[in-house]
């Protein structure tokens, strides 16, 4: 399997620059997920790798060879589209074998591959159905089958699950994860759904406005987001952000807000010592609160409770701001009551309010 490198990749449509200068290396056999809000350039990047869009500038290297001038069919790629893009006038078998038939494979070989892949995807009984006679999930599998039959070395997925309903999406996500373990190919997967990204990717590349915000394993992105955008994008329910200033209280660094002072852990306090008065944005995940009576605990007035199952997300008001806190559903909460929560120090994130960059020392990122 090849290494794919994007070097100084640029894409403009007329006066509109979608991607300015993108650099990314995808290792051999890696499952890379490009994730970001719509319009961030993730699909455009994928389509440039596929050869469906030409790059305005820069290089797309596959094993060191620049493929950016090649036709899609010369790039050894297979692609699964968001709307499946099945050929509506061909049955499932014909859909899956189209590429092989164009490449003039022997009939026996075509049959063998189609049968194998159909068995792998549970499509054997549907081989002579037309796409219009299939359900959404089945169509999705045919689209994947069509890519698998090709045995290309790079697989591109363009939001393949976003047209499915929530339940089916969960099932297909698991199937896709299993499949990716089995086929051991380079996979580049585009999605706007951070849960898909977290569960599927070996490595996640978070994009915004044509730029890479951060890349890393799902855990790295979750534990040490490099900026406020990644922090807010990865993780569900989303992180709370509170504004404050740095201060020293009784020999400890704290973030001083309107009605609170939250002490900072060592990782920050050493590094930020002497920056009293600097404005910061404090980031706390809903799961980073714990209920306690200690003197640093903050009184929170519960205004809404969202029951999810074993956990509930309660939305609280304090100091004129709203925060969401994950609590165990076993302890019932009453709307309107005030409880005291403390922030787990080790799970605090600090960001520069202007640039959004994390204030963690560079060595920890």
């Amino acid at each position: 399997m090849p290494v794919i490198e994007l070097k100084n990749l640029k894409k403009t449509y007329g006066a509109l620059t979608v991607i300015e200068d993108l650099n990314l290396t995808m290792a051999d056999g890696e499952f890379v997920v490009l994730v970001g809000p719509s319009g961030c350039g993730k699909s455009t990047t994928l389509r440039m790798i596929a050869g469906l869009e030409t790059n305005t500038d820069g290089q797309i290297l596959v094993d060191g060879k620049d493929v950016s001038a090649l036709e899609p069919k010369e790039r050894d790629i297979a692609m699964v589209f968001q709307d499946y893009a099945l050929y509506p006038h061909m049955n499932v078998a014909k859909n899956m074998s189209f590429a092989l038939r164009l490449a003039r494979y022997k009939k026996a070989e075509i049959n063998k591959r189609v049968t194998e892949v159909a068995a792998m995807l549970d499509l054997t009984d549907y081989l002579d159905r037309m796409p219009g006679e299939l359900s959404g999930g089945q169509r999705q599998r045919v689209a994947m089958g069509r890519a698998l039959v090709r045995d290309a070395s790079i697989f591109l997925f363009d939001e393949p699950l976003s047209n499915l309903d929530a339940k089916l999406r969960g099932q297909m996500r698991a199937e896709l994860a299993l499949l990716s373990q089995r086929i051991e190919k380079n996979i580049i997967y585009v999605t706007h759904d951070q849960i898909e990204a977290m569960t599927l990717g070996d490595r996640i590349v978070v994009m915004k406005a044509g730029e890479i915000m951060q890349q890393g394993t799902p855990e790295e992105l979750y534990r040490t987001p490099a900026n406020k955008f990644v922090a807010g994008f990865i993780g569900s329910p989303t992180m709370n952000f509170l504004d404050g200033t740095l201060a020293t209280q009784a020999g400890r660094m704290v973030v001083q807000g309107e009605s609170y002072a939250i002490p900072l852990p060592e990782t920050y306090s050493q590094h930020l010592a002497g920056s009293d008065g600097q404005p910061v944005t404090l980031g706390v995940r809903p799961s980073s609160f714990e209920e306690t009576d200690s003197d640093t605990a903050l009184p929170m007035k519960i205004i809404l409770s969202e029951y999810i199952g074993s956990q509930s997300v309660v939305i609280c008001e304090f100091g004129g701001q709203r925060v969401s806190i994950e609590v165990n559903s076993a302890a019932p909460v009453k709307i309107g009551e005030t409880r005291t929560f403390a922030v787990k120090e080790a799970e605090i994130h600090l960001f520069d309010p202007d640039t959004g960059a994390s204030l963690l020392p560079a060595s920890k990122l």
Partner: protein
Amino acid sequence: MNRTLANRLTPYMFLAPAAVILLVALIYPLGYVVYASFLNWNPSQRIGQAEFVGLRNYINLFSDESFRESFFVTIRFSVIVVSLEMFIGVGLAFLLDRNIRGMSALRTLFILPMMISPIVVGLMWRYMYHPTVGVFNRTLKALGFESMPWLLDGDWAFASIIIADVWQWVPFIFILSLAALQTLPQSVMEAARIDGASGWQSILYIKLPLMMPVLIITFLLRLIDSFKVLEVILVLTNGGPGLSTEVMALRISRTATEFRELGVAAAMSNILLLLLLMLTLAMFFYNKITEKRALRQKSEAAEEM
């Protein structure tokens, strides 16, 4: 009791105006033509005075050399014209299916011929085909070639009316094929590119099959229309030389006006009508079948969700 009766009658009362219009505007004239075809009827007579001759008009037509000639001229004309128009129209659509500057202006320009009155089209082409002052022969002469007997020789005249009709009606097929082409799902074309289809292969294996429903309807519409062609040929050749370009519509018109045989003209009309009816029914059933298939597929897919 009365109320339920009134309720039952309500739908029919709403239907009545439409039914009356249908009866007056469609059934009556149609019945009139059918009845007239059984008469030996001269335009100077009132219809009541005409002699009833039963099927004689139809029987005579089958042994009428000139009618048979015009019948086959029509078939030949329709088949050639519609094939040519389909080929050129669809081909043009493929060529012009791209986003270039000024494309919409170009498209409008392309469909202009369709908007010109057929009489004007006939006159225009008659001047262009003129043996001495027409633009074709003058151009040929200027280039040092012999001039052509455009409308003077039977075969040339037939070719000439074909050219004029193709010129006028290619845009119709072009515009419908282009519309069909532009509504094809973009991602399917991209999937074909990824699967390794060349431009020709994606036209042959993907685009044409997907456009087929529209193309078939377009084809039938044009076929039906071409069977009824009259004005352009009337102005260009008036059926001549000899009977070489006398299509059925023209024959009917001449039978009624020149030969003053309204009954025979009516019988001819009915034969043409039957032919067109068969084509229309073919189109109707094709529509029904595709609709049914789409519906069945949808419900089957829904069941398995």
